[in-house]
């Protein structure tokens, strides 16, 4: 019976797509679990180093580190962390939209922007924007290492120390929970000191060994690295979560579509049968 041939092929092709999206959903779910563990594992380190930096900003060192000094802002550096692959819902576009609001604000204030990107999506986006790209890394994969991002961090820190940029920001997605990822823009440099317990107020300073400059240089570099690294693993977890959700809704949509098409197909088939019967009956009556 030739009824609804097109519908049948359409249904089977949607079923194939559904198989793929369902497989991707499951892969993303298992990857998400791993990336989430990694994200949680790096948190203690960045928390502790953040605490030290906070203490340090409240000390009264004889050596004022350039990373603590506020300057008049003429040019800012931006590190944008995105995913390498698409098919993860609005994750990257939300991130870029947030970045754009900052960019337009800076443009209004006549502040120029240097950009370093992590991930192919960001480098694609910013090369279309014709921003001043000074560094990029991509294809980091699911197990990021600190070595992967040391390069761009060094570029940015050198630019800051040379006075080429006066502030440094990092943009990435923050993992709130599996369903929610929030794009965030965080200021890295100059280092902003947060609130601190009363105990530490008053005039005091650390003993530095071997000497203040060397220790602080080392410490601040580590601090920046740990924040950017934390951003990277967090963005990774976000990517997998977003992909899982996106693929789940794609599978659900495919299921709905199949149901609807099946209904149309059944109706067409029934109509054809009814018509055939009435033709036969009419033919028999005529004889």
């Amino acid at each position, binding site marked *: 019976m030739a009824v609804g041939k097109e519908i049948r092929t359409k249904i089977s092709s949607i079923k194939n797509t559904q198989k793929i999206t369902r497989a991707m959903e499951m892969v993303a779910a298992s990857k998400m679990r791993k990336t989430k563990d990694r994200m949680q*594992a*790096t948190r*203690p*380190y960045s928390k*502790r*180093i953040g*605490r*030290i930096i906070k*203490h*340090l900003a409240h*000390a009264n060192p004889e050596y004022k580190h350039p990373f603590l000094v506020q300057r008049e802002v003429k040019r800012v550096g931006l590190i944008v962390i995105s995913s390498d692959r698409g098919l993860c819902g609005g994750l990257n576009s939300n991130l870029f939209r947030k970045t754009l609001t900052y960019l337009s604000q800076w443009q209004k204030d006549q502040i120029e922007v240097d950009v370093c990107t992590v991930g192919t999506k960001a480098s694609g986006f910013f090369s279309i924007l014709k921003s001043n790209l000074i560094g990029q890394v991509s294809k980091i994969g699911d197990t990021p290492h*600190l070595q992967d991002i040391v390069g761009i961090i060094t570029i940015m820190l050198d630019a800051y120390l040379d006075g080429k940029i006066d502030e440094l920001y990092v943009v990435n997605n923050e993992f709130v929970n599996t369903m929610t990822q929030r794009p965030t823009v965080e200021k890295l440099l100059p280092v902003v000191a947060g609130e601190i317990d009363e105990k*530490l107020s008053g005039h*005091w*300073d*650390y*003993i*530095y*060994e*071997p000497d203040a400059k*060397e*220790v*602080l240089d*080392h*410490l601040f570099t*580590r601090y920046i690295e*740990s924040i950017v*690294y934390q951003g990277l693993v967090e963005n990774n977890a976000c990517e997998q979560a977003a992909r899982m959700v996106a693929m789940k809704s794609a599978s659900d949509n495919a299921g709905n579509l199949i149901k609807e098409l099946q209904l149309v197909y059944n109706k067409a088939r029934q109509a054809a049968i009814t018509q055939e019967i009435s033709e036969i009956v009419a033919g028999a009556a005529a004889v």
Partner: protein
Amino acid sequence: MTMTIHIDIVSAEKEIFSGLAEMVFAPAELGEVGIAPRHAPMITKLKAGEVRVKINDKEDHPFFISGGILEVQPHLITILADSAIRAKDIDEAAALEAKARAEEALADKSGKIDYATAQARLAEAVTQLRTLDRLRKRGE
């Protein structure tokens, strides 16, 4: 009741130790330091070696770190280790192998291998082995 101080040891990958101790020994860059409660605030770089956390007279925990930063506040010690392992988890075979590999790299003067990296690796392996040795002696 003796005085105690809170100590946190974290590496980039995970939290290694967190708790109270009577005294902490760490391999600072200018020589080994021992930190007791109410030490003056201090920040120093650490080199590869053994961090020893003395909980009380009977109990202490050795850790191996490959370098890092030590922060001391009167009631709080933070050690940010580049990589830290509980000394008893050091794999002797792996350490020996690493040592052999580093020595090989140093012997190979063809210039293909980064000399400084090889030397650092060798130092790391040797300290790991030394920590193990000390641990074993104490165990006997």
